[in-house]
């Protein structure tokens, strides 16, 4: 590799590709959203494929009765023999009767429901009136024709923003579904700096949903929330921009941006962050020994690619060869792009076969990709990290920085442990 030019990636040309995309659709987000929102049910209006996707992506039937399900469209719904709206009302009535613990119901659009133009907004409005005040019904689309993987969460949160109550309070709102343990850590750090109360979208329960207004300032914790951001801006809220809180550096810069907004004195900031920063640095350093100077290739998946590449390049010493992302939102990723050392290829969208050609030609030390590609690439001798683990595992903020680096280090350490070549021969 030639010497890297100085400066960030904000103004690098982007390779835009169009072709087969080896990515999940937005429905996949239901798997973590339903865990996060404990009194919500997600009802996909779709096909058997949608139901099959959910159970396959969830790791096959791990929940006996999860708070998501699929109302499967049948021939008679499509042929107009049955009024799909009436059918849907019946299924919703049944569901809510069986699950009195449900306070929020999301009707989730899918590829087939979008193609037949089944009006779920109308259905949600009607059912909201029918089941008020006990249950509120909202709708969004997680269809593959409109959303890629994490965009499902974005669509869900964006659907909630217009119905959030109004407030004039000057409050901080954290936006993005994080595992509770991580969210609690973030709230504790902010509280230690005197920033309270802090609201969170999505809240764990419907009764705790935040209010929003002209004095709300919000910080995204996930980079894929473009529509939610737009919706909050429309409600008059103001965004705090910062790199995303991955790694010691990302977390510190993110916290500092929030602290600056709330006028936290720098000595207080330092005293609150000093110990966790030191812990994070130490934990990352241990993993960085494995990662330093290794080359890295990102297939597009979750939109976390740019911030993660920034973390892996700057804090772990890795050398990204290609950073692929489904969508590159410069407004949101600007601060991360500024920090990311220039990479040979920054790509948006996908033509999977051509991208595989590039990966094979470069033979990166570590390839971050989806589950459909991981074993085939391993069989070709390339170490891989499943991208989906990055959204299912707690990886944000200081205490997880070492774990995050560890997710990337483990495949490399494992390869070093196994006798070289043995696995490859067996895969033939």
């Amino acid at each position, binding site marked *: 590799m030639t010497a890297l030019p100085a400066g960030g990636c904000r103004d690098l040309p982007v390779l835009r590709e169009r072709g087969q995309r080896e990515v*999940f659709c937005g429905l996949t987000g239901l798997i973590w959203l339903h865990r996060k929102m404990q009194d919500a049910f997600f009802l996909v209006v779709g096909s058997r494929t949608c139901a099959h996707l959910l159970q*396959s992506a969830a790791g096959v039937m791990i929940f006996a009765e999860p708070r998501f399900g699929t*109302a499967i469209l049948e021939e008679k719904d499509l042929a107009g023999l049955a009024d799909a709206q009436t059918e849907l009302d*019946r299924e919703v009535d049944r569901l809510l009767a069986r699950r009195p613990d449900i306070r929020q119901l999301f009707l989730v659009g899918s590829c087939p429901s979008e193609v037949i133009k089944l009006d779920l907004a109308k259905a949600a409005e009607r059912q909201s009136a029918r089941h008020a005040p006990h249950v509120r019904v909202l709708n969004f689309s997680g*269809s593959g024709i409109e959303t890629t993987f994490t965009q499902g969460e974005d669509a869900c949160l964006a659907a909630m923003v217009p119905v959030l109550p109004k407030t004039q309070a000057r409050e901080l709102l954290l936006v993005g579904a994080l595992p509770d343990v991580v969210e609690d850590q973030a709230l504790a750090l902010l509280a230690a700096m005197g920033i309270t109360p802090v609201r969170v979208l999505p809240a764990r329960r419907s009764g705790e949903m935040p209010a929003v207004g002209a004095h709300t300032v919000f910080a995204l914790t996930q980079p894929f929330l473009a529509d939610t951001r737009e919706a909050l801006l429309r409600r008059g809220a103001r965004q705090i921009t910062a790199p995303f809180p991955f790694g010691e550096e990302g977390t510190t810069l993110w916290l500092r941006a929030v602290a600056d907004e709330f006028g936290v004195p720098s000595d207080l900031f330092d005293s609150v962050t000093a110990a966790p920063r030191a812990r994070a640095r130490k934990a990352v350093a241990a993993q960085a020994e494995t990662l330093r100077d290794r080359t890295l290739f990102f297939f597009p998946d979750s939109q976390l690619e740019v911030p993660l590449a920034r973390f892996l390049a700057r804090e772990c010493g890795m050398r990204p060869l290609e950073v692929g992302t489904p969508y590159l939102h410069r407004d949101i990723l600007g601060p991360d792009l500024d920090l990311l050392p220039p990479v040979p290829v920054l790509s948006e969208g996908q033509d999977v076969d051509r991208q595989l050609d590039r990966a094979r030609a470069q033979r990166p030390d570590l390839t971050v990709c989806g589950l459909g*590609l991981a074993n085939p690439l391993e069989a070709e001798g390339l170490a891989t990290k499943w991208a989906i683990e990055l959204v299912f595992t707690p990886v944000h903020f200081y205490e997880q920085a070492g774990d995050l680096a560890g997710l990337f280090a483990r495949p490399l350490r494992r390869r070093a442990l196994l006798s070289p070549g043995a696995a490859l021969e067996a895969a033939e």
Partner: protein
Amino acid sequence: MKLTVWTYEGPPHVGAMRVATAMQGLHYVLHAPQGDTYADLLFTMIERRSKRPPVSYTTFQARDLGGDTANLFRTAAQDACDRFRPEAIIVGASCTAELIQDNPGGLAEALGLPVPVIALDLPSYQRRENFGADETFLQIVRHLARPMARTARVSCNILGPTALGFRHRDDLAEITALLEEMGIEVNLAAPMGARPGDIARMGAAHFNVLLYPETAESAARHCETAFGQPYTRTVPIGVAATRAFIAEVAALAGTARHPDEARLRQPWWAASVDSTYLTGKRVFLFGDATHVIAAARIARDEIGFEVCGMGCYNREQARALRAAAKQFGVEPLITDDYLEVEAAIAALQPELILGTQMERHIGKRLGIPCAVISAPVHVQDFPARHSPQMGFEGANVIFDTWVHPLVMGLEEHLLHMFRDDFEFHDAAGPSHHGGHAPRSLSDAPGALPPHPQDTSERKMPEAPAADSIVWLSDAERELKKIPFFVRGKARRNTENFAAGKGLNEISIDTLYEAKAHYAR
């Protein structure tokens, strides 16, 4: 519209993928939106395949819908031919593409590709995965196979094994070896391992061996009509079925050579005294009809279990299952709603479930041991070792697999003898299941899926029992002395007994009266 949480079968195009992925030199061009590519991971993760499935997805998006999705399909088909150089392609639509009616078959035909194009018409809103596999294989055979002279030596085709099938890889190896021992050549096995060029030679075989009616019955029927090839009706799962299969094959082939049974251990393992504890254990069976019917016969006739219920999720084979259930004197359960299956199991309180991965989870919830006998599959259904269900080795494997979830014979005996002994107390669980106490019997069998999050949140479904009945404390204590693996049944039986007698309290006497009442 029907609310579904978990499904036993995927959509029909996944069945087509199972056929395409099992074969060599065939490519599937699938008109489908972004997201449908999830199906690749079924093969690369669950089955640990080292190659991507040979599928190109058009991955159209919303913005393409107003424009030219047909052109996307043309490009994808042409690119797939150029890049992968298949010997034939199959083309079709997933559920969403079916709605936009681009007619992939017609489009691909018009491209003038240099290879045979086989159009699939798989109605996504009516049919399911097994139908998709069966229909796809039928269309491939219809398009490619031609009548031809029979081989000089007696030969057969083996039909049915696909990718992502329950132990198909090992069954194929087992049956191939068995046929070889009988002096019968295997002309070809398909779909697994076959190339389009091999399919063209199908007509050379003297007869067909149909291993899985779920995936290849239509093709077998077609060959019977088109090429005059008879096909086997016996599925060789179990000792008796394997022997019957051998007799059937021998008659078709006109051979008298029987395979060696020396490696068959199952009958002695079942007859040896340690297996006494298996006697009359009540089992519930659920899965695809073929595996369930075979398993029920093994359970009753070769292991000495009592079949207390059986069912299948695939309606295509419901008739055969109903007939079998009648022979066993149980109600057939034909459903693809796992909640109905769970309710049936909760009501019957079997001592062992023989089911799919879905029933394994139901068993975890209800504290009932389960062994897996059928698809849908899970990563643990693809063991590294040779582990067939069919043939003599299959019978051995089945014995081990079914007995494994249970407490071992001598151990069960000790538990009865020592009951509250500090080492033999039932909280220790079966001693060959390491590292967990009985509560985790509910978590134990098998590996967890890739993203384990234990989130059981619903209460166990209760069998219909009188809630108003009170257990007196001495009776409750006595109940706890009963080993855990029969305690659920004892509690249920006693409560039913008490309810039947109009009692609202259960004493020690009631417990033992119930025991005597239900004694076998």
